[in-house]
């Protein structure tokens, strides 16, 4: 029984990272009504950033975290201007296809450069032992950092002028524009922010598991499930949804082969979309 509990606690820890990733996705959706299909590529970006910063530059693993935030942000802003700017406000079809095609380009380049071989970043961190089960230090650290970054995001959104501008544009872009807010710049900032969140979560995931260029897809699916659980446009809900997904995975893993995970997640995704269109955690919405 304690085995299942250990698995659950472990799942919750990883779930915090899922939540962080999903916050990036849900933020972009909430602000500009765009589903960012480069999300997976951003996660992979964060993973490889960790690898190169740790091995090539010799940075301590968790030192890469702030660097990845910056890299992710910059790449996100670039993606915004290339693929998103012209299609914001047009039919959903267009932004879906443009972000998706950007994703294809990025992953395609990644595959050409790094092939599909697995990469790994070993992070020596002592774990915590309880009742004969060890919770790896990396899991605990990842969860702590995820919550920390989520907290910083909260501060940014609710205690700074930029955050206020972002929330204003999310609420009503035209009104914000009329009030003198440079909405286009706010949009690109928000997109960069969402990408940064995805990237840094990729970095954290890379401290936990080995990865390949194609790993983004699985985590992107998880992010969508979480986003839907939390309700689109609701960052706090995304965090809770992430923990919930981690919980579910924790309960399921002892009893089910891992190749069944996509099926379970997909069914959950559909069920929540149909039964709880506003998200199960919609009550955590702030505004």
């Amino acid at each position, binding site marked *: 029984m304690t085995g299942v509990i250990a698995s659950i606690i472990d799942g919750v820890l990883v779930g915090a990272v899922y939540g962080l990733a999903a916050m990036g996705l849900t933020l972009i959706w909430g602000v500009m009504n765009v589903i960012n299909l480069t999300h997976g590529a951003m996660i992979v970006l964060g993973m490889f950033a960790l690898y190169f910063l740790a091995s090539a530059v010799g940075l301590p693993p968790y030192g890469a975290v702030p660097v990845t935030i910056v890299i992710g942000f910059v790449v996100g802003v670039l993606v915004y201007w290339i693929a998103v700017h012209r299609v914001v406000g047009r039919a959903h079809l267009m932004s879906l*296809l443009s972000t998706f*095609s950007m994703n*294809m380009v990025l992953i395609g380049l990644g595959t050409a450069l790094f092939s599909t071989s697995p990469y790994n970043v070993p992070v020596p961190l002592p774990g915590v032992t309880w009742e004969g089960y060890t919770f790896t230090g990396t899991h605990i650290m990842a969860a702590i950092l995820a919550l920390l970054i989520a907290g910083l995001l909260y501060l940014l959104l609710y205690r700074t002028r930029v955050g206020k501008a972002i929330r204003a544009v999310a609420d009503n872009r035209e009104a914000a524009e009329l009030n003198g807010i440079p909405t286009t710049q706010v949009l690109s900032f928000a997109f960069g922010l969402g990408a940064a969140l995805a990237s840094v979560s990729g970095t954290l995931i890379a401290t936990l598991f080995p990865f390949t260029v194609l790993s983004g897809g699985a985590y992107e699916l998880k992010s969508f499930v979480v986003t839907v659980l939390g309700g689109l446009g609701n960052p706090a809900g995304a965090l809770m949804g992430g923990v919930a997904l981690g919980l579910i995975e924790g309960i399921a893993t002892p009893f089910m082969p891992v190749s*069944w995970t996509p099926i379970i997640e997909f069914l959950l995704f559909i069920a929540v979309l149909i039964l709880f269109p506003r998200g199960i955690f919609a009550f955590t919405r702030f505004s």
Partner: protein
Amino acid sequence: MAAHKSFQGATEAAALKSKEYRGVSPIIWHIWRRPFTWLIALVGLAFALLPALGDNVQLRESLLLAAVYITLASNLNIVLGYTGYVNFGNIVFFGLGGYICVYLVSEWLWPLSAAALIAGISVSLLALIFGLGILRLRGAFFALATIGVNEAVKAFVSNFEPWGGATGIYLSLEVYEPLGGPRQALWTVYFLIVAVMTGSLFLSYAIKSSKFGLGLLAIGENEDAAAVLGVHTPLYKALAYSVSAFLPAIVGGLFFFKTGIIEPGGAFDLTRSIETIVMVMLGGLGTVTGAALGAFLYEELRGVLLTTEAFSHFQLVIAGLLLLGIVLFAPGGLMGFIYGRWPRVRRLLA
């Protein structure tokens, strides 16, 4: 209930006009005399005769692939082009149809035509049931759900032992005997695929010319307005989704029968799914000609790229850039450009 006087007159005129159809379905009546119908028939005939007349196996193989893609693209157009719903996971019909057909032929020793037909019908039915569920999801959610469908079905099939699990099903040469041996079978299957391709072009054209198609196009323009105007949006979307599954499932069955093996990765290849979307966008979203043209051109392009060593790694990148370029700068695709320059052509083609 007083009816509008002049509407009364209009309705009477309308009733008289109905009699003109003489019991033939109005759709058939409308498109029978249109030149585009003959154009489709001509294309089908060309595909069938050109390789056959010269016993040209290389041409046949090349055209076979093109025919498969034209089938996939024109059927995808029914959902993507007409209703605007992005079926990212459209390849699932192809793969599932392939599996059902191959399984029936190899395990139950069914004749090919029956197996392919049943594959088409069952996938279509599944799509209808499933569609009723996921089509209430708007725009982006629907798109994501279709990706999820594809991945989930792939994962399921990989674990499904009766269908060979992760290794798939291999067809022994015996299955080609009822068709006159492997060499003859390849020709027969080719003609069947050409028939399905021609059928797909007819189908998407017929739908576009019908009341059903008008409803779909209205949904694509403005779903809420369409509902207010009386279009039964959930049913129509589900029907479109289901209809768009039928022929791709059949062609999947035929294709994998011809190939001789089917395994999860190749059957539910998401890249191929995306490429189909690129084809439709390239040719011109919502047009019958565009879907066919886009499929043909993309297939030729792909063939060139794959043989050039330098480009084969970048297949995904190039497809991505192409799609991005189309979305940003030419969302109407080729036919959009042509119709814009020469509006008269629009009356001739569809």
